[in-house]
């Protein structure tokens, strides 16, 4: 086990240890991923996907493995999700501590990845990390693969609809612990499902989270996905996503970032079949000295496809956000509709929001637009509320909540929407 001694960002306490939970062939792949991780140079600002990034924050040197959870019961109780769920799974420090799957229809497979690798090998091999990570974090994706011991597969077969959401909780506990959450969703033709990932810290300690979530939607299928990220304010987190949408399928995904000290999010949507749709939403609250750095890619590789991205950032104190999004329309992909909008609301004088909305259009039959705005709170709006007796600070929070809630309107599932709205209100200190 060699470590690249010149790379200060590589942790000396995070080591690759093959685990017996995986079949032999996967362990070999993990070994290769570990070597790839060590051999890949750390990113620098000169790399286009890391332009403006705070590279110094990407320092893994203090992180180590995650010990077993002290009190599983406590975590299970704290995993409050939606009222009615089709299934619920809880991970603590990479280990599955609770599973409940009574509400799932026939044929639906929701199982930990190591079980999937054994019992559904063909499916696993076909979809597990099949999409290369192109938005900058290839090195860390390889680290994730090498260190993976948990993670879930959600498979819904053809024509099956799962009425209620499937919830997965990922907890981290302990100082400098590292967790590697993974959610792999595969929907068959015309299948339908809602999946919610919750990322939370059991304490306020610094930690490292490196998560991947990949979605594969077959013809005519429909996925609604939400990720609520609420790691401790001292956590370094990577969340890497890819969404592949086939013919006539629709994916609606929302990522809400409330926690983490430095968060790097990468989201890729590939519109791979005619009539495919992808809606990419994100609401981000950055305060204190926190940083949220998000890179996205809307890749149109089919005709009559639509993608629509809307990100709302709210910044306070010394916070910093970066948004860089590319819409690429390949040659020959006619009748493309692609939209991208990022809105930045800056509440303090020291906050900094960087926007790089990008377009790469190699086709002439497209309708694409992107927009980015940044401003402080509209004084008129504040005044209006104050004139109704609402104190300024509360008015401010209400306005921020309003921006987030209006983004949630894009979620069709009413109870999911209500639940997310409640989380937003709670996080903002509004009842």
């Amino acid at each position: 086990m060699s470590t690249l001694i010149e790379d200060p960002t590589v942790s000396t306490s995070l080591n690759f240890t093959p685990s017996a939970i995986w079949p032999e062939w996967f362990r070999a792949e993990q070994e290769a991923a570990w070597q790839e991780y060590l051999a890949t140079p750390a990113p620098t600002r000169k790399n286009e996907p890391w332009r403006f990034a705070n590279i110094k924050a990407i320092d893994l040197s203090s992180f180590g493995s995650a010990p077993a959870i002290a009190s599983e019961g406590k975590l299970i109780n704290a995993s409050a999700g939606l009222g009615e769920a089709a299934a619920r799974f809880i991970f603590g420090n990479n280990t599955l501590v609770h599973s409940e799957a009574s509400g799932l229809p026939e044929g639906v497979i929701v199982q930990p990845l190591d079980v999937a690798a054994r019992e559904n090998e063909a499916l696993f091999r076909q979809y597990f990390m099949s999409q290369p990570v192109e938005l900058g974090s290839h090195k860390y994706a390889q680290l994730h693969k090498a260190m993976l011991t948990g993670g879930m597969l959600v498979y819904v077969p053809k024509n099956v609809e799962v009425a209620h959401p499937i919830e997965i909780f990922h907890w981290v506990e302990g100082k400098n612990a590292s967790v590697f959450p993974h959610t792999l969703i595969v929907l068959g033709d015309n299948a339908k499902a809602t999946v919610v990932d919750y990322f939370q810290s059991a304490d306020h300690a610094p930690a490292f989270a490196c998560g991947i979530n990949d979605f594969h939607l077959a013809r005519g299928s429909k996925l609604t996905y939400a990720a609520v990220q609420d790691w401790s304010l001292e956590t370094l987190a990577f969340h890497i996503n890819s969404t592949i949408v086939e013919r006539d399928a629709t994916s609606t995904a929302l990522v809400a970032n409330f926690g983490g000290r430095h968060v790097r999010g990468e989201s890729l949507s590939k519109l791979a079949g005619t009539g495919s749709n992808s809606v990419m939403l994100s609401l981000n609250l950055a305060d204190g000295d926190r940083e949220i750095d998000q890179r996205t890619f809307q890749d149109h590789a089919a005709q009559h496809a639509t993608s629509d991205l809307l990100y709302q950032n709210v910044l306070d104190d010394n916070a910093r956000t970066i948004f860089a999004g590319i819409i690429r329309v390949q040659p020959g992909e006619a009748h493309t509709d692609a939209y991208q909008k990022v809105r930045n609301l800056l509440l303090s004088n020291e906050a900094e929001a960087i926007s790089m909305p990008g377009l790469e259009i190699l086709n002439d039959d497209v309708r694409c637009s992107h927009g980015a705005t940044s401003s402080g709170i509209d004084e008129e709006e504040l005044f209006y509320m104050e004139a109704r007796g609402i104190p300024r600070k509360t008015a401010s929070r209400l306005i921020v909540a309003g921006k987030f809630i209006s983004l949630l309107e894009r979620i069709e599932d009413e109870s999911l929407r209500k639940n997310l709205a409640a989380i937003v209100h709670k996080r903002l200190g509004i009842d």
Partner: protein
Amino acid sequence: MPATIEQDDKPQIDIDRSVGDFRYDVNYEFDAGVGLSEATIDYICDVKKDPDWIREFRKDGYRKFLEKPMPTHWASKDLENIVFENIRYYLSQGVQPKRSWDDVPEEMKKTFERLGIPEQERKYLAGVEAQFDSEAAYSNIKAAVGEQGVIFVGSTEGLHKHPEIFKKWFGKVIPSSDNKFSALNSAVFSGGSFIYVPPGVKVKHPLQAYFRINAQNFGQFERTLIIADEGSEVMYMEGCTAPKFETSTLHSAVVELVALKGAKIQYVTVQNWSPNVFNLVTKRGLAHEDAEIKWIDCNIGSRLTMKYPGVIMKGKRARGEVISIALASDGQHQDTGAKMIHAADDTTSNVVSKSISIGSGVATYRGLVDIPPHRKGCKNNTECDALLINSHSRTDTYPAIVARGNQNSFQHEASVSKINSEQIFYMQQRGLTEGQAMSLAVNGFVNDLVREFPMEYSVELKRLIDLEMEGSVG
């Protein structure tokens, strides 16, 4: 997603003697030879009788040029086709190559006709005459210069005769170290204008670069410095819609503008270099309190143009604006954009960029809007729209906006659309040919921006766009 463009294998570039099917006689009186070295710099200084401080400035620029790498990690890899050793860096205007009117190709003559270029200009543009009798044509500029105390001379004369003003600002807006090509220009600059407008003087007629043609204005490495003193106003126009007979293939100009308190500068450029030219320009303005700098830019020619006009708003309530039209046809790459730095409170900037890509043309927009910490009341509005005409064309948009603090606002919108075949069919059903339909639609797209150009240009510009559109229809 690399922000680079793949180019087909293009031949290396040198001072190409076979531009199109042009033929001409060559007779060099002052010729520094090919390639660049300290000796070349010394030669240039000796010929021009430059003072020591300029010699030192040039040599420093040369050193910086050698140090800096080509910016191909973000810019077009086509830059690698420039062979610096084969380029002539100094050639006296007095003996520019020329040819007879009979040798001028028919299409060129027809283009002049179509664009309505005045008779007297045609021979100059076609390379038939080395000099252009501007004195008669531009008598009103002469008046402004004479009566109002405006200084309007070539850059060489400027630095010799007005060293105090020249030295104060020269190289301050764009330091040699800014980029590889501004460094090159600092080393070998020759030609370009030096303009000083005294306080309160509002120059009524636009000053045109043509006026200075006889004194080596048009060169590969022009250096222009315009200083508008407090409360003054001036408009400067360079370039023209007609294609110009061109022998050198690397143009690397530097334009520095300084608008002092309450002053206003508008700088209008119409660029239509022939399709083998690399046009790499650094343009920047410094706007003081209550001052305004507006860049109005149209890029139609050249093989590769890289140009990102910028304004540093360094005084309160300063204003910066970039209005840009780019047309990229087969084999062309227009890589343009804008840079707005809000270095003071209550400053506003506005960028409107419209690009059209035809055939295999590539149009790229790169923008930077920077609002440093502790600023308040700053506003930016950017609109960039791209129109694609055929299925091989390409357009990329890479803006970067760095916004800080809660007291500023910016807005950026970009869109890409195409002229679709249904619209063309509709217009054809009304009797317009495909070419006429395309040019109507394209003119509609850029109409608002063309109106920003002074009258002299906007009519020619519309005709030029029509010509380009007709040429693009197979």
